[in-house]
């Protein structure tokens, strides 16, 4: 019998799409205000890396989480400015590359080109906004690893997942139940 030399091969795709499960506690809530209580209690206890699930975006959740404004706006701004610049370059450079006089107007006449510049601003702004959302949400998911989820979160239940080792789990479970969690799962 020959011995196989086993090399630990890296699996980058596996890591990106299926990061290893993160141990923690998941609380399922029926009520919005109970969820808010749980978030407040967790923050008071010094937790910052928990995940809140909700079927719809609620400003109350945003308020108690007190997160910084999403960086997506920078994507929109940069994309929009880039689009405008590309529109200006496209029209002006192409006009001078093969100059044709049309209707006695200057070769590079800016007023009609504003239309193209505007459309390109919107096009690039919108596409980079989409990229911004995808990138940021993907990186957030990457940071969180594979965490517990319940299919009811897209329907009518709210959820709070707190990553924690087995040492802290009991205390967190008590905290979530006290806040009004319907169910608490450890994983």
């Amino acid at each position: 019998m020959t011995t196989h030399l086993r090399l630990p091969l890296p699996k980058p795709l596996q890591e990106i799409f299926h990061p290893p499960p993160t141990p923690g506690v998941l609380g399922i809530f029926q009520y919005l205000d109970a969820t808010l209580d749980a978030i407040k209690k967790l923050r008071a206890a010094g937790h910052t890396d928990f995940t809140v699930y909700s079927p719809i975006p609620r400003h109350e959740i945003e308020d108690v989480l007190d997160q910084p404004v999403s960086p997506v706006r920078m994507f929109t701004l940069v994309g929009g400015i880039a689009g405008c610049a590309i529109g200006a370059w496209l029209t002006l450079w192409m006009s001078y590359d093969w100059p044709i006089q049309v209707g006695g107007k200057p070769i590079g006449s800016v007023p009609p080109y504003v239309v193209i510049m505007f459309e390109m601003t919107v096009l690039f702004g919108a596409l980079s906004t989409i990229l911004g959302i995808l990138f940021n949400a993907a990186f957030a998911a990457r940071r969180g690893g594979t965490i517990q989820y319940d299919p009811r979160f897209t329907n009518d239940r709210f959820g709070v997942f707190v990553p924690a080792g087995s040492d802290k789990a009991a205390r967190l479970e008590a905290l979530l139940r006290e806040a009004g969690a319907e169910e608490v799962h450890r994983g």
Partner: protein
Amino acid sequence: MAEARTPTRLTYDYVTRTIARTLGAPTRGYFLLLGSAVGLLGVGIITLLFLLRYGLGLAGYSHPVYWAVFITCFVFWVGIAHSGTLISAILFLFRSGWRTAVYRTAEAMTVFAVMTAGLFPLIHIGRQWYFYWLIPYPNERGLWPNFKSPLIWDEFAIGTYFTVSTVFLIMGLIPDIAAVRDLATGWRKKLYGITALGWTGANEQWRHYTRGYLYLAALATPLVLSVHSVVSWDFAMAIVPGWHATLFAPYFVAGAIYSGVGMVITLLVPIRRLFHLEEIITVDHFENLAKLCLLTGSIVSFSYVTENFVAWFSGNAAERAAFWYRAFGPYWWASWTMNICNGLLPWLLWSKKVRTNITALFVISIFVNIGMWFERYVIIVVSLAGEPFEPWANAVYNPTWADWGIMAGSFGWFFMWFLLFVKNFPAVSISEVKEVLVPPRRQKARAGAQHT
């Protein structure tokens, strides 16, 4: 705010299940509708094959009318598209709660209407295989498109509009696809699992999503106003009397939204009935759509009056002749159809009784669309036919079977996509309808004090 418009007693669970139910097994009626749509599309394809074989002469093109039904249909379908973005983006920025129940249908309609509109310039150019000449690409002749031409602006505007409205529709769909994924079983669970892009409703997802959605809406708002302005400049930049008017951009935008809202009503009435969505899409929603119709219809009526007044007041003989020809020339029937359907009909909507009568609204919405089609026909064909610059060339143009065949095909194409959409994806936004409901709270006393 507008929260009360969707009955607040609905629960989140009820909303999810009611809307997800629309994706159930298709009935015989659905297949009948889809079959008719595909049949109409077939008529269009056969007509197109004839056009390719025998040329555009089949479509009745002759001097001086070289822009006719195809361009009319192009403007008609682009116009239909506009109310979708108005409802999904502009009313979003205005925080109108009532839009949530109707915006998905309107937005899907937008995407499919732009897809339909985009076919017409291609059919109109006759040699579809050269369509890429419009695109600025490096070529052996070293030539570039003429960016001073409104037709090139239009290409950029429609291209951008199609792209942005499609991504906007898909963005809105992601949380709803996730909601359907979590209820579905079998192959549908797999399909929605992939298309939901891993959506879970985690706070990190909502944080970026809501911001991004806001900026998309902010970008789509000026875009929708620009697109029909650019379409109007296809005409207004020319010197044909009846086209050459500074009024055209706002006039076209208002007309576009008017016809689009009409089409939304035409589509929503049967969807609501067939899918039993009466609890979610209420009479209040229809009343609001009717008010939008009344507002934009009044702007259109006002534009008609202004247009005629300016033609007379300008003292310009060509302009006056063009408008006289429009109203009393051989095309008087088209002009008066347009005047009655768009100028007078919306005034019925001042009455609350009409606004809250779904059957009446459905009938009015169909006439709105007929009227708006004729508006484009009158502007395009009648202005060209009665062109007083070349009195020797005046001719009465009449659409031929090829025009009607292509037009029927366009309706088939549009309804085919729309029917496929409503059966495979939630036609009403699940997450946004929930946003206007009172959220479930432990302390009921505080529910009254909540605000949105």
